[in-house]
């Protein structure tokens, strides 16, 4: 344990670790959570295969943890990697269950074996994302170097603030497009959108905001410190998260229109439903984009 970790509340640093793991998981597995074939596989898969899936996930995550991992402080010990692997898998099971519930793929009436099948199958890619955690976004971006250089020179001109803001919006758009593009033309979006009722849609919006806030500000990915120094009018974490979510929603709506999932004849609530459903992957991508650019 480092001094940095100890000087902070250990509960908070544990929460940060878990948050970082979950963020990596969402980045890696959102596309598969939006894939109906995986839900179907979960519906009819037999228990033996499910156990095999869990074991494979365990083995792969364990091996990844030997080289990477989601914790800030790492250790080459066998027991330590076991410890992390168990947590990564449990975190994946909990997060995918919550997300499938949010998307109405499982509910409290769903038979147990179907819940287990879907959650176990979706949690395998999620667990890979958890294990890869920090590796995703660890490369330093040129933008941050640029901005810290500017900052050290003291005064920031309004032109620079405008420039940073535009770069934030641009990075969000690129990231959002990157992830949402592969999901936008699929049949899953209208399928999910019709099944989701207004309260769940609101919950999905809140989840989108929380996860994108988590990725950028909480998870402690490598660029986060630089991120916090980033200038521009969107730099308050909350206002940045909300503004980036709006950008993600606009990107989602545009992509849906581009792939003819939405037309201007559709009623406004269809536009809302579909855009919010696609808004989750877009927000996740946008958050990653702002860290990576």
């Amino acid at each position, binding site marked *: 344990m480092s001094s940095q970790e*100890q000087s902070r509340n250990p509960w908070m640093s544990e929460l940060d670790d878990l948050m970082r793991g979950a963020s990596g998981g969402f980045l890696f597995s959102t596309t598969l959570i939006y894939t109906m074939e995986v839900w*179907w596989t979960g519906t009819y898969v037999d228990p033996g295969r499910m156990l095999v899936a869990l074991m494979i996930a365990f083995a792969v995550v364990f091996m990844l943890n030997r080289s990477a991992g989601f914790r800030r*402080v*790492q250790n080459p010990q066998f027991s330590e990697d076991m410890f992390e692997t168990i947590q990564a898998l449990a975190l994946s*099971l909990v997060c995918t269950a919550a997300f499938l519930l949010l998307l109405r793929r499982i509910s409290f009436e769903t038979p147990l074996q179907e819940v287990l099948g879907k959650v176990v199958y979706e949690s395998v890619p999620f667990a890979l994302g958890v294990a890869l955690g920090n590796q995703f976004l660890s490369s330093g971006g040129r933008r941050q170097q640029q901005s810290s250089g500017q900052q050290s020179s003291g005064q920031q001109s309004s032109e620079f603030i405008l420039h940073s803001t535009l770069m934030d919006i641009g990075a969000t758009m690129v990231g959002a497009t990157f992830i949402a593009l592969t999901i936008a033309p699929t049949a899953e979006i209208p399928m999910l959108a019709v099944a989701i009722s207004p309260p769940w849609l609101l919950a999905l919006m809140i989840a989108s905001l929380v996860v994108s806030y988590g990725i950028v500000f909480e998870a402690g990915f490598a660029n986060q410190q630089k991120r916090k120094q980033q200038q521009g009018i969107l730099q308050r974490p909350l206002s940045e998260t909300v503004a980036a979510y709006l950008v993600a929603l606009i990107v989602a709506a545009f992509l849906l229109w581009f792939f003819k999932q939405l037309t201007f004849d559709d009623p406004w609530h269809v536009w809302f439903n579909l855009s919010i459903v696609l808004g989750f992957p877009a927000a996740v991508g946008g958050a990653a984009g702002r860290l990576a650019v």
Partner: protein
Amino acid sequence: MSKATENNLSQTQDQHRDRSGQQNQQQQGRSVAEWVSFGISTAILLAVAGLILFWWLTAPKGPPIIRISPAGDIRQVEEQFYVPFEVKNTGGSAADAIQARAELRINGQVVEQATQSFSFLSRGETEKGAFVFTQDPREGKLTMSITSYKQP
């Protein structure tokens, strides 16, 4: 654990990559929070594995058994009659592409038919739908049946 050594440790982001040198501290210094989260994690993992095993050992084996039955009152809206129904798989395995059919006979003659299909009905799962007729099913005899399914 010596404070001095700790304070000397770099607090940079590279820290998490540094896998040597932190070993001793890590061994002694797992916080209560980490233990609690580990305990909960282990419990979740064991519970999931246990549930899968439990289901494996106790669940009925065999092919799907699919039943269709009316589910609620017939609704009339304008000139259409909505007959809600549910399809339940009580067998031992899942089914796909389940075809449901309803026939309305009035005075012994089939006057209307309606069909519906369902994808992926897992063991124990129930799905709901409605047949729509233009004549009042209460004035005749309505039969519902499952005509086919596919093994997934």
